């Protein structure tokens, strides 16, 4: 979660939200949340689990989004 917050603080184009899955079950279901942390970018589920900063950047800046 902290990497997402750090990324948002480093770029005005990025916003980052933690979403407590059990409090928003319908939203979590719609994003196929089975494990946490689950990372969703622009409404599209991407991956589960924590990753290093470089990998995090690789993934959120993948051609799908950039």
């Amino acid at each position, binding site marked *: 979660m902290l990497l997402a917050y750090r990324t948002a603080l*480093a770029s005005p184009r*990025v916003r980052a939200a933690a*979403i407590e899955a059990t409090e928003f079950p319908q939203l979590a279901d719609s994003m196929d949340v089975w494990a946490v*942390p689950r990372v969703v*970018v622009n409404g599209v589920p991407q991956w589960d689990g924590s990753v290093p900063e*470089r990998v995090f950047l690789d993934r959120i800046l993948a051609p799908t989004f950039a």
Partner: protein
Amino acid sequence: MAIFRPDDEARVRGVLDALERPVELLVALGPEETPLAGARDVDFGAETVRVAEQLAALSAAVSCRVEDEPPGFDRYPAIAIRPSGEDAGLRYYGLPWGYELGSLVGGVVEAGKLQPSLSEESRERLGSLELDLAIDVFVTPT
């Protein structure tokens, strides 16, 4: 009931002492409390306010404000972590509790830094970003 155990509270006070600028916690309660199935009468909005207020009480640099439906929120209850009182796009949706209390504290610590924690290389890569990104991270308190 305190949100931190005494030893944890002392540690959190310590990390908040390092804040280089003020951080505001804006709690958005939403239009009305909607009980969740199986929630057993937990008032998530009131609990979220309690967490934010108790966290703010640990540092003069952290403040807390509560509104019903401020702009910029998708769901409720929620907390915006606002460096120098400005919206930087940081949100916590739901009640931050258990393990996830650390995410809220960590967000406050990051927002309180004058320079982003990301590496210079990462910041350069973000500088070439040509569209907006919304990163949602689903978490649970355990």
